[in-house]
């Protein structure tokens, strides 16, 4: 691994402390130019066994759909594994062929977003708890200076939800905003940025 060679190369004072972070800025109204992927919504390829569609409507504080947003998802595979070196159980090749774990959907269709994926497995935590199956979600849009982060849980896992440490940390009245509803072919998860029924967002 190469190391930074000196302060002059980077404009930072390398005195042993952390170097300062780069702040966030909005994606702006023209994100489609830079962030469009033809296969963005395909976390798994079409025809994958057990594929589901997960999607919904992104709305603002007046309930108006946001047509210039971007929703991204990240998740474990159905076995609850990640093909990533920081998973201390070891990086595991996904049990589903073509599984990317990551989805990206622009809300250009009247504020609607969706991804094609498979349901993730539950995950162990360092405390010995078990996190119920979930997707991590980032939302970006014009008018958002920093992303917001939420999670999608699945309605059939209500028993696992009672043991999920993240859900249990959320006010019980707001918990339902984190649980998708079953629809034909998958799940619906609306994201309300503000106001009545505001989705729970996390300090990541």
């Amino acid at each position, binding site marked *: 691994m*190469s190391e930074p060679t000196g302060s002059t190369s980077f404009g930072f004072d390398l005195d042993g402390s*952390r170097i300062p972070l780069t*702040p966030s*800025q909005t994606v702006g109204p*023209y994100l489609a130019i830079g962030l469009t992927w033809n296969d963005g919504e395909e976390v798994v390829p079409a025809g994958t066994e057990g594929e589901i569609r997960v999607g919904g409507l992104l709305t603002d504080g007046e309930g108006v759909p946001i047509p210039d947003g971007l929703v991204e998802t*990240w998740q474990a595979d159905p076995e609850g594994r990640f093909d990533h070196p920081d998973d201390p159980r070891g990086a595991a090749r996904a049990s589903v062929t073509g599984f990317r774990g990551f989805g990206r959907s622009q809300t250009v269709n009247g504020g609607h977003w969706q991804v094609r994926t498979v349901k993730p497995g539950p995950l*162990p935590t360092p405390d*010995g708890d078990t996190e119920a199956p979930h997707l*991590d979600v980032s939302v970006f849009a014009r008018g958002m200076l920093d992303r917001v982060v939420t999670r999608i849980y699945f309605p059939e896992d209500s028993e696992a939800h009672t043991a999920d440490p993240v859900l249990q940390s959320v006010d019980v009245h707001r918990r339902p905003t984190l649980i998708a509803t079953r629809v034909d072919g998958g799940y619906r998860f609306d994201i309300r*940025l503000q106001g009545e029924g505001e989705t729970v967002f996390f300090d990541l």
Partner: protein
Amino acid sequence: MTDTAEPRAAGSRLVLPAYERPVGLHPPRDDPGYRSTALRHPAEPLVLLPHRLTEVTGPALGSSRVTAADADLTRRHAGEPLGQRIIVHGRVLDSDRRAVPDTLVEVWQANAAGRYRHQVDQWPAPLDPNFDGLGRVVTDSSGRYSFTTIQPGAYPWKNHHNAWRPAHIHFSLFGRAFTQRLVTQMYFPGDPLQPYDPIMNSIPDPKARQRLVARFDLDRTEPDWALAYHFDIVLRGREATPFEEPVEGRDDDDE
């Protein structure tokens, strides 16, 4: 907890990295100076999310998504775009000074006249048939990236009377973990519009604002060809004590 009776926890315990939680770095999500934030920010307090497996991992979106041509925004058409040719380069690091290798960097920008190739952008500046404004690169093993483009122009927007965005290039980065995902904008040194820009000035710390201003880099200019700018991007590093986690998650309403 030290209970290991649970089958899932049998054997060795999970030890996960925890990423630093910057305070006061990013713009507030509700910024009166940037009007569009009014209806697009959460009004409820955020709930603390510990960094567990989903948060400390992230997609590996390396070279499979990028071709060599994606690093040169001036060569996507038969002709060359109008404007000052520039090279933009730098490193992607985390705050522990670790390079972030093999990570996807996506950029987009206006053309030299300040016009985006997008149906929403209709202000009366010319489109350039030879410029799309889209680039993608992957960092090398040292976290370095470089692309060639043209200097983008400033453009008006409707936030307030006579509002103009300073010249900028949009950057999107993944890093190695969900915690590190970052979208930002790079600005140019000496741009007189910067003090008037609500988006840039939404960043609370003036010094942090200046970190979004690239540095003119004479050493990397190419004689008789292109000017050059240096722009490093620093993503969240890891906490020194990865074992420590909040015990309960009810510390979300203390601001």
